């Protein structure tokens, strides 16, 4: 789990790169780190290209992060979901909550349009 600020489009976009599994054992780590990221920017992307498993507590953490971002009038967008992770979103009503992009660049561009 790493976080950096991308300024390629002129504005500050926070990119969190998530790796491996996000489940009941480590979703708390994401929730702990998130407020600090949110202080740096309110435009955040979760780059999920390396995320290969998500369970309900991981999904719950995503929703909590989204809620905090929306409270700050920002947005949290998701990029490059693996097929099985995408299926979790499809299966639950969470797909209606998030803007999901096929790759990181599309997600970055989406903030400038």
């Amino acid at each position: 789990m790493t976080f950096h600020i991308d300024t390629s489009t002129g504005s500050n976009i926070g990119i969190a790169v998530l790796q491996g599994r996000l489940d009941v054992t480590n979703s708390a780590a994401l929730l702990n780190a998130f407020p600090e990221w949110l202080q740096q920017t309110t435009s955040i992307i979760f780059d999920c290209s390396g995320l290969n498993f998500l369970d309900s507590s991981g999904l719950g953490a995503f929703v909590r992060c989204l809620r905090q971002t929306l409270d700050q009038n920002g947005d949290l967008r998701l990029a490059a979901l693996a097929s099985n992770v995408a299926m979790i979103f499809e299966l639950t009503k969470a797909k209606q909550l998030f803007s999901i992009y096929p790759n990181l660049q599309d997600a970055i561009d989406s903030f400038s349009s």
Partner: protein
Amino acid sequence: MKTLIVIKEQNHAWVRNAFPGIHPLLLTLCNKPYIEYLIDFAILSRSEEIRIMSDGSLGEVEAYCMNGSRWGVELTYSNIRTTDDITTILQKNSRFCRDNRTMVINGFVFVDYDKESQYDSIINTMPDGVIASAENEGCLILRGQEKNPDAAPAPSPPINLESIDSIESYYRISLDILKNKSSQFVLPGYGNEPECFIGRNVVISKSAEIEKPVSIGNNVQILSGTHIGPDAIVGSNVIIDKNSTVTESIVLDNTYIGEELDITGKTAFQNMLSDPGTQAVLSMEDPHLLRSTQNNGTLSALLRQITHAITALTIIILLMLPFLLIAPLLMVQGKWKKRLTDYHGAGDKKVISIATGTIPNQGVTGKLASIFSLNRYPLLFRVIKGDLSLIGNLPAAVSDNSSAPDQDNMTHYYRPAVFSYAEAENWPVIGSDAAIVERYYMVHSNPLKDIGMTMKALINLPHKNTPK
């Protein structure tokens, strides 16, 4: 007329991966096992004897179809080698085929017939050879003397074959049967309108919406706020939990669909969800996806533990008199057999040792003991100690690997207990039926309901122990 059904392991290897534990010949298409379609077609073609052959195991198929008397045909089984070609297979069955027109259905192939049509004329007048074949694999072959070689071939309906070679074709063929071809086959279930097949013991909540075409198996619970169909195939022993949607999808037997889920264009089998289009597979480690996001775990667990302990204490006091009177007698008679076994514990307690007692339900003392479920009495103290829950799952023995709850699932729906939800509901305690009902209550229980379920278990257990 005789029919040989030849299916090799390689034809249906994908089924073993996609739906582990299901014998491919018993895989259901629209809730009817695959082999039954072939048997129906063979009978429609006037076969009196059918032989099923495979290079793999046929035990489960034999246990299901038996000798065919259910269909009024003679069914036999035989084994072939993986390398056998059709000529060798016919030679291995030379006695069966002798002096008879024989139809060979070769491959894991779906035969698109129509129950209203006659197929014996086409089969009796066509010359030897392949009369139909599927695009990828599988064909229909005729061998032996035709009955009326000179008669002009009757204008028979064409027979189309389609190989079932992937989850994609399985999904497509199944939904095609439901949507367009339900009148062509004898499909299981009742329904007072077409395109709506509903099995036995199906409970549909008033607020559930069912949109045809649908096919629903036996022992299915459809809870409130759900939306089933259009184009939904729901197998047997399935629970569809509150506010979930199942459309354009197949839910196979013994599957629990959690709350608030949207199953569209998928196949769901136990904890595996597949998308036939993209071939993506999702293995759900916890089947109740949205629920636990709002769940305040630790507090409710503590509340549950306290309620269980208080209830256990109440039962201990209530049953103390019968226990003190009967137990010593049983022990003196040597009827109380105890065995210390290691079971999987809940949460961080990895292993717990429990002395389980069995008491034969014989004699006055045995019967009384059974009425009061006295063999469970000593376990109640373990509830107060916190080792066991009062009601939950039957403890899974450490040595019994098959029923061992895997590590990831442990926290979600394994709670070793004195009584199990399955016992309370009078469901069979062993097997997948029990797993489903226990999983369901594990999600829906609250401390108050648990007290009620414990009482139910206490009432139902003696009935179960009584020999019929």
